[in-house]
């Protein structure tokens, strides 16, 4: 019997010829990523269980990316980054993106692929639920807790259950103004926030093939919002070209067999997608942007691992060019590389930063997770009151961007930009004609 790409990667990583959904197997990790929120706790578990003098299983395999609470006065946040620094020094870890130094990068899920830590066929564990992002590069990537991460840190292995796969086949051409964010929000709206609990979500079809690697990341990033264990897209020429431009390490590409078994297969036509939003307080509360046009907003936020990549800012700038925003518009590039690109990439001879400045946006903040998850009260862009924020981020649970009284509406960069101009939820196609 054939296997899905997820099953093949897990079989390869566990030394089995064949694995099936439901089997519990020990898999070897290629990469363990942790950040400032879960790193100190992971290290605590690692030392408690393996001893003060223990060494990580493979220094090349542990990647530490502080990104959540970077630009804050909160002392505990600084202490946590210090704990990571001490650990990196003690263990001589080569991959540490240290805040306040030239190696600082920003949001972990954008940093990992940018710096060549994501490679097809590998197994990547991260102490962050959006680790599923990296399935976009044809690898198995999933989020784990501190205890499991402490285990991986010491052994390079983890006991996991092979997930069944739900396949989403999307064929055809996306209409203008529709992005990867609209695809994944629509899918979450259709299957619900627990529609893929425990499952692998495999995305295929000509629409997916037509997307850039960054747009594919947006789709896999939100697999967790449907409860998925991992999102995955088979590697193709685009993937290989992308990965080779970032790393010279070898990798292996896996593809699903034609007779692979799926829990279900759902089919979509690319042409059917429209710009959508997820209204408070659940990512599956999805409506078309047009139908939600009565919803007034107080601010617009473009950033995070979902919607703060270079492509996302290009979308936003394309829309904002020649217009003025009518609400506070916050821009948070996810990484230093994105931040620099904002100053270099031009549309019609104007840099993106210039376009944003002329549109009246607030000057871009330095890269980090910022208000995507609220954070300490002095976090840039945090909703401290009852604000309604249209945002390119991934979660809109109560209090996600700060105060319990605030509301987050999830949208694509186009929709967030169009809504910033009008002050209410707006279908971006009104501006993209």
């Amino acid at each position, binding site marked *: 019997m054939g296997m899905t790409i997820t099953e093949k990667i897990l079989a390869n990583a566990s030394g089995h010829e064949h694995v099936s959904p439901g089997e519990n197997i020990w898999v070897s990790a290629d990469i363990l990523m942790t950040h400032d929120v879960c790193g100190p706790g992971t290290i605590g578990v690692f030392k408690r269980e393996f001893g003060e003098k223990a060494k990580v299983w493979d220094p090349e395999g542990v990647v530490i990316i502080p990104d959540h609470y970077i630009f804050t006065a909160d002392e*505990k946040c600084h202490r946590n980054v210090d704990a990571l620094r001490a650990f990196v020094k003690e263990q001589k870890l080569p991959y540490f993106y240290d805040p306040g130094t030239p190696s600082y990068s920003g949001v972990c899920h954008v940093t990992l692929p940018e710096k060549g830590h994501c490679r097809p066929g590998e197994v990547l564990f991260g102490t962050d639920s959006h680790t599923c992002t990296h399935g976009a590069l044809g690898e198995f990537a999933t989020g784990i807790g501190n*205890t499991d991460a402490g285990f991986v840190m010491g052994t390079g292995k983890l006991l996991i259950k092979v997930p069944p796969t739900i396949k989403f086949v999307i064929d055809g051409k996306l209409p203008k103004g529709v992005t990867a964010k609209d695809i994944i929000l629509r899918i979450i709206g259709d299957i619900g926030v627990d529609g893929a609990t425990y499952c692998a979500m495999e995305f295929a079809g000509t629409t997916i093939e037509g997307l850039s690697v960054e747009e594919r990341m947006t789709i896999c990033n939100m697999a967790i919002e449907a409860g998925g264990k991992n999102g995955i897209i088979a590697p193709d020429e685009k993937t290989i070209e992308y990965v080779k431009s970032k790393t010279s390490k070898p990798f292996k590409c896996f593809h699903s067999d034609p007779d692979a078994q799926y829990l279900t297969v759902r089919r979509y036509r690319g042409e059917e997608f429209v710009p959508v939003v997820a209204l408070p307080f659940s990512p599956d509360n999805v409506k078309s942007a047009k139908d939600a046009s009565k919803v007034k907003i107080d601010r617009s936020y473009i950033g995070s691992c979902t919607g703060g990549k270079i492509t996302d800012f290009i979308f936003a700038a394309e829309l904002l060019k020649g217009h003025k925003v009518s609400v506070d518009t916050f821009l948070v590039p996810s990484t230093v590389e994105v931040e620099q690109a904002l100053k270099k990439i031009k549309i019609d001879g104007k840099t993106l930063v210039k376009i944003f400045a002329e549109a009246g946006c607030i000057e871009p903040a330095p890269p980090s997770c910022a208000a995507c998850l*609220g954070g300490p009260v002095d976090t840039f862009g945090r909703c401290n009151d009852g604000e309604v924020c249209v945002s390119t981020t991934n979660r809109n649970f109560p209090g996600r961007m700060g105060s319990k009284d605030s509301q987050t509406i999830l949208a694509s960069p186009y929709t967030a930009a169009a809504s910033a101009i009008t002050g209410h939820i707006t279908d971006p196609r009104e501006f993209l004609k």
Partner: protein
Amino acid sequence: MADNIIRGKVFITGDNIDTDQIIPAQYLNLVPTIKEEYEKLGSYALCGLPDEYKTRYMAEGKTKTEYPIIIGGSNFGCGSSREHAPISLGAAGCKAVIAKSFARIFFRNCIATGEVYPVETPEDLNKMLKTGDEVEINFDARTVKVLSSGKVYNTNDLGAVKEVIDAGGIFSFARKSKMIK
């Protein structure tokens, strides 16, 4: 398994209780493996629930809850992978969470840490009970009994993960199966 029977008052919540409601992000600067900060995490357990929850899980100024059992609906613990979530519940004195279904990472973190028992039931017990009711969870019989009425509900089998819980978490399990020393 440490306890085969857990008895106590229940605290009722709804569907899709996410980790931001269990422990809001501003408290994630607390590190669970540091003892005082572990206790502190407990004092904030479920403080992100909306104000419509008139009865709070943690009474003002208290570090321990009077409700050792939380009952949710579907998809309890969705959202982030923060282990702070099951840990804050455990630190607050919660022993078990009963729900129709759990989000994967939360469920896994409960097992890996051994902080609270995630108990699935086929029925929506959060719609049948109210905060303050006393129940008894019996792991051997796989039942939840309401003490005032004597009504008994079944729980789902924990399946293969039971072995890991029985061993006392992922580390003990791996030691027992000689994966690690």
